C-alpha cells in the first residue's frame, strides 16, 4: 500500500476493544494494537472495528477487483467510512493457496509476512476456513503488486467465486499413522492439474475439495466440500495381537468392552481370551477401534480412497452432506491419478451442463436425484452409496420416460412437490 492515506497517524479510540486485552487467550486485538504503531492504517481499522462494536454494525461493502487474467482470489472491500478512515477506502484480502497440510518453513512464512507488510496492512490469517492463507488490507494497486510479488516468490493466489476453490487436506502421511493415502500429494496434484478452473470462475457455482487421510476426517471434508476424498482400506485391518494383550493387561477387559467392542457401529469386534477377533467383512472403516487402540491396530495394507459427493453448508436448500460416490479407488500410480482426474472432469461436465446458476453440486443432486446423477456421470449404482433403498413406490423407468434434468427443466417441479398449480387450474 503506497497511498498517502496510510501514512496519516490516527489515535486509537477503542474502549470496547480494550476489553479484549484481558484474559489468557492470545488477543488479536493486542497484537494489532501494538502493530498499529508501525502500520498506521491498522489504527484506522481498529477504530472502525470499535465503531462496529459500539453500533453492532458493519461498514464493509464488497466490490469486484481482480488481477489481470484472473477471475478471483481477491476479496475486495471498501469502507462506508472511507471519509473518516481513508486508509480503509480499499481494503482487500488476497487469498493465497496454502502448502498442502499447512506445513511451512520459516523462510516461507517470513516471505509472506514481508509481502503482506510491504504491499498492505501486514495482517495475516493462518488459515481461512477453506484452507487459504489470507493476507488482509490492500488497496487496489497494493493488492495487484502483492499478487505479483507472491507469484514471483512461487506462491499462487487462491480461489473465490463460481470456481474450483483452494483445496485443503489433513497432515496425512507427513505425520499421521492413520493416513491411508498421500493427501498432500493428491492435493497438490489436483490443485496443479485443475489450476485453470481455480483461477477462472467458469462453473455454475463454487466447487470445493477436501482430502482426509482416513475416516476421522480431520480436514472436515464431508460437510464442507463438494467432493470429499477420504482414505480407507480393503481387506483385513492390521492387528498386533501382542499389543492387544498388552492393552487388555493395562486397561482391563471391561475398558475394552465398554470403549471398543460395544462402540463398533456394526458390532464386528469380539474378544477371545486376549485375542481380538475382527469380522473384517462387516467393518465399515469407521476408525474408532483403531483410534482407541492405535498401538495395536492399524488400517489394512490394501489402501485407497472413498470418494463422496455433495457436501456444503446451509444456503438455499439447507445443509447437504457428502454421500458415497466411489466406494473404493486406489490412488497410488500415475494411472490412478489420471483416472481420478478424468472422473472429476466427467462430474464437472455433467454438473455444469445441467446445473442452474448458483447451484452447488449437492443441491443439483438433490434436485435431479442421485439415480439420474449417476447415469449422467456414468457411474454404476452400488448399494454402498445408500443407507437404504427407496421407500416410495413411484418409479419412472427411464427407458420409458425422460429423466428429470432434461425436458421442461425450469418449469418442471420436482415430482415430489405438490404444487399449487393443480389447484389453480382447477
Amino acid at each position, binding site marked *: 500500500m503506497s497511498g498517502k492515506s496510510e501514512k496519516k497517524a490516527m489515535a486509537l479510540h477503542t474502549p470496547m476493544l480494550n476489553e479484549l486485552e484481558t484474559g489468557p487467550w492470545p488477543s488479536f486485538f493486542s497484537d494489532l494494537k501494538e502493530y498499529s504503531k508501525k502500520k498506521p492504517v491498522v489504527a484506522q481499522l481498529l477504530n472502525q472495528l470499535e465503531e462496529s462494536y459500539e453500533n453492532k454494525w458493519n461498514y464493509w461493502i464488497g466490490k469486484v477487483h481482480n488481477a489481470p487474467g484472473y477471475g478471483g482470489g481477491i476479496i475486495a472491500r471498501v469502507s462506508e467510512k472511507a471519509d473518516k478512515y481513508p486508509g480503509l477506502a480499499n481494503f482487500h484480502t488476497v487469498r493465497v493457496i496454502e502448502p498442502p497440510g499447512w506445513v511451512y518453513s520459516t523462510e516461507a512464512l517470513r516471505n509472506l509476512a514481508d509481502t503482506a507488510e510491504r504491499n498492505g496492512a501486514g495482517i495475516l490469517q493462518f488459515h481461512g476456513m477453506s484452507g487459504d492463507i489470507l493476507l488482509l488490507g490492500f488497496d487496489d494497486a497494493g493488492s495487484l503488486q502483492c499478487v505479483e510479488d507472491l507469484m514471483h516468490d512461487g506462491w499462487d493466489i487462491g480461489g473465490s467465486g463460481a470456481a474450483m476453490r483452494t483445496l485443503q487436506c489433513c497432515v496425512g502421511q507427513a505425520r499421521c499413522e492413520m493416513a491411508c493415502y498421500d493427501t498432500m500429494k493428491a492435493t497438490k496434484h489436483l490443485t496443479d492439474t485443475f489450476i485453470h478452473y481455480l483461477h477462472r470462475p467458469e462453473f455454475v457455482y463454487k466447487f470445493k475439495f477436501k482430502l482426509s487421510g482416513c475416516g476421522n476426517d480431520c480436514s472436515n471434508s464431508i460437510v464442507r466440500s463438494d467432493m470429499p476424498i477420504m482414505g480407507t482400506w480393503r481387506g483385513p485391518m492390521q492387528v498386533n495381537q501382542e499389543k492387544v494383550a498388552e492393552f487388555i493387561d493395562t486397561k482391563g477387559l471391561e475398558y475394552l468392552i465398554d470403549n471398543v467392542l460395544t462402540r463398533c457401529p*456394526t458390532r464386528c469386534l469380539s474378544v477371545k481370551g486376549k485375542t481380538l477377533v475382527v469380522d473384517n467383512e462387516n467393518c465399515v472403516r469407521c476408525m474408532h477401534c483403531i483410534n482407541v487402540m492405535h498401538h495395536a491396530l492399524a488400517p489394512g495394507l490394501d489402501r485407497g480412497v472413498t470418494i463422496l459427493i455433495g457436501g456444503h453448508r446451509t444456503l438455499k436448500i439447507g445443509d447437504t452432506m457428502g454421500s458415497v460416490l466411489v466406494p473404493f479407488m486406489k490412488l497410488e500410480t500415475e494411472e490412478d491419478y489420471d483416472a481420478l482426474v478424468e472422473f472429476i472432469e466427467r462430474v464437472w461436465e455433467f454438473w455444469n451442463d445441467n446445473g442452474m446458476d448458483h447451484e452447488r453440486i449437492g443441491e443439483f443432486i438433490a434436485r435431479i436425484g*442421485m439415480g439420474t446423477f449417476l447415469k449422467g456421470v456414468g457411474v454404476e449404482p452400488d448399494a454402498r452409496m445408500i443407507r437404504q433403498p*427407496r*421407500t*416410495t*413406490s413411484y418409479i419412472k423407468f427411464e427407458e420409458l420416460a425422460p429423466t428429470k434434468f432434461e425436458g421442461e427443466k425450469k418449469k418442471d417441479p420436482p415430482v415430489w412437490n405438490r404444487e399449487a398449480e393443480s389447484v389453480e387450474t382447477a
Partner: protein
Amino acid sequence: MSDKPMAPRDQGAPDYNKYLHPLMAKNYGEWVSHDRLRPGVLVHTAKSGDKLYTVRAGSPRTMSADTVRKVCDIADKFCEGYLRFTARSNIEFLLGDKGQLDGLIQAVEGDLGWPLGGTGPSVSNVSHTQGWLHCNLPGSDAAGSVKALMDDLIDEFKNETLPNRVHISSSCCQINCASHGDIAIIVQHHHPPRINHANMQICELPKVVAICPAAAIRPAVVNGYESVEVVHEKCMYCGACHGQCPSMEIRDSETDTLSIWVGGKVSNARSAPTFMKLAVWGLPNNPPRWPEISEAVRRILAAYKEGAKPWERVGEWIDRIGWQRFFEKTGFPFTRYHIDDGPEALSNLNRSAMVRL
C-alpha cells in the same frame, strides 16, 4: 325388501363383552404370561391361575357362509362358542380345557383343512387386499397370489424356525391397502394413464386434477370433449387419478410388473418402526400361481434365515449386514431405481464414509 324404516341409527361398535370367551371375561386385564406349546398353540396364564389355550390357524380370509358355519361348529364343540380372528386374518380358537386340545387341533386341521401355525418366529398369514375379486383398481389378484405363495411357504407357517416373526403383505395396486410388511408385494405401472376422453365428463374434473401428486393433470378440450390431459414428463404413474376417475386408465396388462419390498417394521421393539424398502422390481405378473414371486420371497427368507440373529426382523438384519450384502445374498440386482428420489432421498443416501470393503 322389508318395510322396516331405513334411517341412520348410529349404533356404534358391537359390545365385545358379549363375545368374550368366559376365561377372557373373567381374567380381563389380569393376564400375566404366555407360552407357546407348539407352533400354532399359545397358552396364556392369568393371575387367577386360569389358563386359556389358543389354537391359531391360517384362514383364507375370504369365506363362504357355509365355511363360516363350519368354523362355528368347531367353536361350539370345543370353545364354548367363542373364537376370534387376528390382525393378520388368522383364526384363533379359544379353549379352556387342555384335554380338548388334540380334538380341536384334529378338527381344525382335519375337518376344516386349515393349517396350524403363524405363531412366534414364523411366517404368519399374508395380509392382502381385494384384487380382481372386488376392487376397481387392481393390476393383479391378491387372494390367488397369496394362496399360491402360502402353499410355497407352508413350512415356514407351520414351524417356528425363523429368527423372528415375518409379516408379509400383498397388494394389488400401488395404493397398497395391505400396507407395510417385512416383505411386501405390490404392482407397478410404467406409463401415464390413458384417457378415455369421450367418457371423461362423467367425473368431477376438479377432483381428479387436484389429486395428482405431481400436478401433471390439466383440464383440456380434446376432440371436442371437456376432458383433461396429462403432462407425461411430470406424471409418475402412481395411479392416484385412476382411483378418482375410471376414464384415466393406469393399468396395462402388457407392461405392469410386480415388485417386492423389504424391511417394513411396525413394532417399536429394539429399533424404531421403519418403512419398507425396494428389494426387486420388474417381476412378471403371472397368474394363476405367480411362481416368480414365490421364488423371490423364498430367496429373501432363505438369506434371512441363514444370516439373521435371533430377534432380528428382516430390516434389522439387513441394516446390520449392509444392503450390499443383502443384494449379494439374494442375487437381486442393485439398480439406480433403488436409489430414493422421494421426499427423504437425501437422508437415504450413505452420508458417511462407512463402507464395507
